[in-house]
């Protein structure tokens, strides 16, 4: 599948889409407000049908948080990557996509647990792994996380 062809197809339904420089797969960068509308459009468009979210990753970059969505179209076997940036590091928030892709429900809980990114309108946003550990205050995957008691660094 040629990336250029896919790009044109995406531009047909999402004229404002911004593409990142070429990588392994076609990558769309977007501000966090658009994530729901983009996912919905990509899923519903009969030319694309991106219906399988196979990976959702949280990232802590120096100046922002990012949530990365790896989408596949099970009908046409296209793969694209969506990157939503969250510039607010104090109080990170993004819309949930768990009603569009049900698998995101767990993935979002995991990202909330690791990074503290709040997913708005998530049906059950609790810490998924680290909820019963009494002193687990911070979010361990943030780069500024420190835990002198439990981490032995090497």
């Amino acid at each position, binding site marked *: 599948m040629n990336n250029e062809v896919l790009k044109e197809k995406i531009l047909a339904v999402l004229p404002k889409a911004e593409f990142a420089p070429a990588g392994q797969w076609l990558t769309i960068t977007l501000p966090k407000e658009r994530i729901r509308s983009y996912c919905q459009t990509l899923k519903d468009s009969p030319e694309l049908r991106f219906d399988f979210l196979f990976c959702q990753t949280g990232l802590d970059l120096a100046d922002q948080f990012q949530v990365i969505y790896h989408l596949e179209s099970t009908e046409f076997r296209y793969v694209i990557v969506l990157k939503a940036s969250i510039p607010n590091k104090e109080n990170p928030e993004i819309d949930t996509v768990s009603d569009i892709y049900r698998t995101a429900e767990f993935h979002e809980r995991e990202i909330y647990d690791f990074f503290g990114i709040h997913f708005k309108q998530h049906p059950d946003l609790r810490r998924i*792994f680290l909820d019963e*550990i*009494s002193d687990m205050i911070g979010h361990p995957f943030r780069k500024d996380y420190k*835990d002198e008691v*439990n*981490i*032995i660094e090497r």
Partner: protein
Amino acid sequence: MGIKIKSMKKNDFRDNDTLELFKQSGGNVLITTLDEIVNWGRSNSIWPLTFATSCCGIEMMATGASRHDFARFGIEVYRASPRQADVIVVAGTIVRKMAPVLKRLYDQMSDPKYVIAMGACAVSGGPFYYNTYSVVRGVEHVIPVDVYVPGCPPRPEALLYGVMQLQRKIKSETMRLTRDRDREYAEGTIPPKFKLSKEEDHE
């Protein structure tokens, strides 16, 4: 090819004889004989608890299955309830969320109870010793351990050897004395140094 394992003379490879030194000498003829009978019975019918957290659990299953078959040594029936089990084989990593559960399981077991720490994770944290925020570095910080079986994961033969060491240990017990370990555990002097939270020590 490049790897050579230094051979060991048969004489050097002895069983752990120091266990027998624990045995109390002297005493009443009747009681020591009774001890022997009781210990013989106990050591040959150790029932393990099905407690497997990760990879080592698969090797524990393999030990119980067709080829290795540890029922030969009397460690026979896997019990699902801690109240029916004699030995808990801690097979796998214990993380901080699991530690209170493990302690509760141990407390629910009826005396006499024994613990085998199977695998590097249960012995010391193993591959998850450094740079992780959630692993308990050795099950000895939660419950007292009788036998350590190293390996990642240990071969079934290693677990069998560990079980046989436990049997030796049971055979050297006497029922007149409470085991030091149990007394210390009841008093709260062991397990040492493990912290569940920053403020309060693990009770």
